[in-house]
């Protein structure tokens, strides 16, 4: 199985304070730590597990600035064979559609049976890139995938539906699968492992290498344009209980007592 995995280098924001920057169209990233998008970490793991079981190769690809090499090196350390980074000034402000077009140019002539990616990215949350890429390549896809079984000519996948239900689908190869978190247990890699992976190939390609025109990418090649970024207005806010742990615990117990819950 030859697999291409599309990954994204994103800021970790789950526990960080977020502020909009002076342009009003981005967030302040100076104090944020960047790492592989959580969903994509499961995608690269799934690809490496398949390689370990079935043989073949894993190529990891991203679009992003030089700092995104950290994510690529991490994937190489996890077991990917080679990496490609797509970068160009013209790629900035690309939405999901423009991003998929860029990836498409880089992938269309590579040999593969399967493309894997995360169902969505934790930053912009479009949940589109993999599916658009599949359509541009003319191959079938399945998203929100929680389980993959490889057969000769097809894969049998479980798609996550709402309310704990799953949908089992058979998808003909070659195909694009966008995986959900929890599909496997992503392995950890040591700093030593990442350093060792420096010997593996990492290719950098730009607009001209991909045969793209400027108007096809960036904002002009996108479907949507961001007008403004803002911290959402607070419609309802919890009453914050303050004090030391003892005081807070006492306040909670009082509230629970008043409602007959203790």
């Amino acid at each position: 199985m030859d697999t291409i995995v599309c990954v994204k280098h994103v800021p970790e924001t789950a526990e960080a304070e977020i502020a909009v920057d002076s342009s009003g169209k981005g967030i302040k990233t100076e104090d944020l730590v960047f790492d592989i998008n959580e969903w994509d970490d499961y995608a690269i793991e799934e690809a490496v597990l398949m390689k370990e079981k079935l043989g073949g190769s894993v190529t990891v690809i991203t679009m992003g600035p030089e700092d995104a090499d950290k994510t690529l090196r991490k994937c190489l350390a996890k077991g990917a064979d080679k990496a490609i980074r797509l970068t160009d000034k013209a790629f900035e402000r690309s939405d999901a559609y423009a991003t998929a077009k860029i990836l498409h140019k880089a992938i269309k002539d590579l040999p593969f049976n399967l493309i894997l990616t995360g169902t969505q990215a934790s930053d912009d949350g479009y949940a589109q890139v993999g599916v658009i890429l599949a359509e541009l390549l003319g191959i079938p896809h399945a998203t929100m995938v929680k389980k993959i079984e490889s057969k000769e000519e097809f894969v049998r996948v479980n798609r996550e539906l709402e309310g704990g239900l799953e949908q089992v689908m058979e998808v003909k190869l070659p195909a694009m699968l966008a995986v959900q978190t929890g599909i496997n247990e992503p392995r950890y890699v040591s700093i030593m492992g990442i350093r060792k992976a420096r010997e593996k190939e990492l290719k950098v390609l730009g607009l001209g290498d991909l045969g793209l025109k400027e108007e096809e990418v960036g904002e002009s090649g996108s479907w949507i344009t961001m007008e403004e970024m803002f911290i959402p207005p607070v419609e309802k806010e919890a009453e914050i209980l303050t004090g030391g742990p003892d005081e807070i615990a006492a306040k909670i117990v009082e509230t629970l007592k008043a409602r007959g819950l203790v």
Partner: protein
Amino acid sequence: MTEILVLAEHRRGEFRDVTFEMLTKGRELSQKIDADLTAVLLGHNVKEFAKKLADHAKKVLTVDDARLEDFNAEAYQKVLSHLISERKPLLTLIGHTSFGVDLAPSLATELNVPLATDCINVDFEEKKPIVVRQVYGGKVNVKASLHTSESYIVTLRPATFEVQEVEPLGGEIIEIPSPLKEDIPYKKFVEYYEPPAGEVDITAANILVSVGRGIKDTENMPIVEKLAGALGGALACSRPIVDKGWLPSDRQVGTSGKTVKPKLYLAVGISGAFQHVSGMKNSDLIIAINKDSKAPIFRAADYGVVEDLFKVVPTLTNKILEEKKSSS
């Protein structure tokens, strides 16, 4: 006449709530821009079923085909690209659900129609859609415009638009012959799979202590287990805990897990992503403990504690045990 299409979503013979949420939003938009509101129902033996949509739309288009009985993005895309090419609706609304995520991006690509996904609002400014989306896990909103086109597709976030009681529109039901000519060669629906139920039913519990990413390590789980024990409640969780395998999937609260409505929901170390909140927001009393004061969970909670859970939770557990001892 300008038209707004709404793709009805159904599963195992029932409409999903998002269908009526989209029709509510669709009606508001159709009034604003003077457009016809049309529901689209793809399925098998759906004639009777279609009547349920007639109150909510001016027209109900049905396409009846055995290959549309269960959702299959390939079959759905073929039918919808045919319908959209023929009718050229100004806007097509699709749910940002597991079905919509599988369908909308490839449909938009095939038709070369701009798409905005997971929108929490959509409006028109001079016949051009303006959307609001959430980014960075709901901490930031984005207002965005779609590039000029004769047709647009927008997917709406479920459980975001309130369904309104309205005057029935008595829509006309129009059967469209299925445009599916040949087989659906690339994708096959096999079956639905329901993971086996465990010993605890969190939907039946009066008190739920729910744990999230903030617990950091499986070794710390006894901290919240003890709290649940002291309260006589059950232990539930948000998605990351199930993804890591620290609790079974039947303990998960949220869109992809269970919807709960206990008397007390005590959220510990949960940031409160939209997917989680939609599964617990109707609880009678919500108390959240999280060290990040900006965590979205504090917008869903009645009471909040901005503090390290490792400091507060053991103290709280002891206080509750003392209280129970002294009152018994």
